[in-house]
């Protein structure tokens, strides 16, 4: 199925060679041995899967290695594989300004036995990790340890759930409609409390908002 698209009509993409990626893998296997779980190559990009326990040390080693000098943490993100154990990939993109090396690190955490996964923060290595880690906490519910408090950065602070998890629905929230509180008619006085604690449905009746309702249920 996957090979269906590989037909004539489209020239093939040349894959660049990246000798410094090999040097990076060599450094990691040399220093951490069994901590390097897998090395994969796809379209000329090298991905190293690491044991989460050695992640921070491995990052520090890559940053400080004189022949590599990964000075820029380009990105951190996560991928959710709900059927897999461990469930989350935390993906780090490293790049070097000086040597033009580039590599992807991966750590796998979470799953059935660990529904609220934690992983060590790399903020001590690259301060740039700050907002990327907050974003992953917000959208995936992965907590980063060894740094300041985690807070939601994109979603409202009182939001329930983590939207980029695969089991989070794309639509169909159990909020009354319209869930942002309803448009108040200009020519009528507002009912007391609207906009604060109540939501109005399309027929004009009032409903306690979602926070109140779940408190009532509990």
């Amino acid at each position, binding site marked *: *199925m*996957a*090979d*269906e*698209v*590989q*037909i*004539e*009509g*489209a*020239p*093939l*993409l*040349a894959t660049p060679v990246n000798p410094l990626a090999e040097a990076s893998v060599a450094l990691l296997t040399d220093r951490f041995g069994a901590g390097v779980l897998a090395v994969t190559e*796809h*379209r000329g*990009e090298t*991905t190293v899967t690491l044991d989460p326990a050695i992640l921070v040390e491995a990052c520090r080693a890559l940053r400080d290695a004189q022949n590599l000098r990964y*000075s*820029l*943490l*380009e*990105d951190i*993100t996560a*991928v*959710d594989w709900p059927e897999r154990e461990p469930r989350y990939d935390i*993906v780090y*993109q490293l*790049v070097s*300004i000086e040597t*033009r090396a*580039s590599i*992807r690190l991966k750590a796998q955490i979470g799953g059935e036995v660990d529904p609220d996964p934690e992983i060590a923060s790399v903020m001590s290595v*690259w*301060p*740039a990790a*700050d*907002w*990327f880690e907050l974003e992953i906490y917000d*959208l995936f519910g992965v907590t980063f340890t060894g740094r*300041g*408090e*985690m*807070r*939601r*950065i*994109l*979603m*409202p*602070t*009182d939001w*329930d759930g983590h*939207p*980029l998890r695969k089991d*989070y629905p*794309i639509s169909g929230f159990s909020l009354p409609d319209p869930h942002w509180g309803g448009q108040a008619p200009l020519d009528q006085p507002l009912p007391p409390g609207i906009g604060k604690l109540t939501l109005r449905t399309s027929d004009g009746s009032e409903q306690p908002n*979602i*926070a109140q309702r*779940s*408190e009532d249920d509990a």
Partner: protein
Amino acid sequence: MQLEDSARPAALEVEDSVRLDDRTRRDTMTINMGPQHPSTHGVLRLILTLDGETIVKAVPDIGYLHTGIEKTAEVKSYFKALVVTDRMDYLAPLANNYGYSLAVEKLLGIDVPAKARIARIALVELQRIASHLVWLGSSALDLGAQSVFLYCFRERELILDIFELCSGVRMMTSYIMPGGLQADLPPGFDAKVRAFLKLFPDRLREYHDLLTNNRLWIDRTKGIAPISGEDALAFGCSGPTLRGSGVVYDVRKAFPYGGYEQFDFDIPVGSNGDVYDRYLIRMLEMEQSLRIIQQAMDALPTGAWQVADQKIVPPPKYEVSSNMEALIHHFKLYTEGYRPPAGEVWVRTESPKGDLGFYMVSDGSAKPYRMHVRAPSFANLQALPKMVEGMLLADVVAAIGSIDIVLGEVDR
């Protein structure tokens, strides 16, 4: 649902009055700037703690424009997810289209014909000029130079006219797509771009005359909101924000993509890392973009503007109504789309704001399993507190302007 206390931003609980001893105390004031402040370029909220007029602490609060673009892309086919990328950096939609298209093509393992490759570079560089013009106009407007804004928008309109000629749309064109371009370059394209190339250097000189040696402009920008190269790099800055601090890093040179290695252009680099350096870099970048466009127009070949593989690009309309196979391809592409082999790719491009990265994961199905965007503005905005702490309140406006954020991209 419960309100978690730990989920509240720490900055909301700022202690504004500190007792130093029995008789004296130190008062600071915490104020909100935004999210409806005209100089925050969208919906950025800053929580500023002031000691007099000096910034003690600045905490950006983002997310007001979070639209779930990454989640949306997961339920669309690769072909359809293209249009959501326009909406991220809405001042440079083609740059987003370009990054996305390169990522999908890398997943598929295909390259595009030479005409598409060169035309894309010309279009993206035009987009860079358009984006920088909006930045120049609005950041000058924030500092009180009103006329610059009107001039900049006059020239930006010429670029948008070119985009409209190509695609029928001024801004959200989706003109660059996986597999090439949406349509062939229109007949008047060459003349219009060349006319712009002829006109723009004079206009650029006008902007320089208005600002570069302007005493008021220099007073408001020179030495304001500085950041060192090490700090900028540590905070993950890229683009003009990083180069203003003297770090030589441009993705087009460091990791050439899409044919940039064939072009002759320079990378302007600053040294002081202040607002003025970032300003000059973008001004000089526009000049370099002109050089690239000139070379691209001279080198633009004839021939195909898309790959011939009709599983990736839709067949021409006249074939759909006459050819059975074309009709099937058309139907399959729009209903189901194509299935790149399983795998993951990372594509970085130099957007007008900086290093724009696309991380795409395919599980072999017709929809992206995960699309993550490394938005340059997101990382650049992280460095804002570092820049403004210790400066005056009025300098925050200059600093925000100088890092050229687009909140659509920050929040996605």
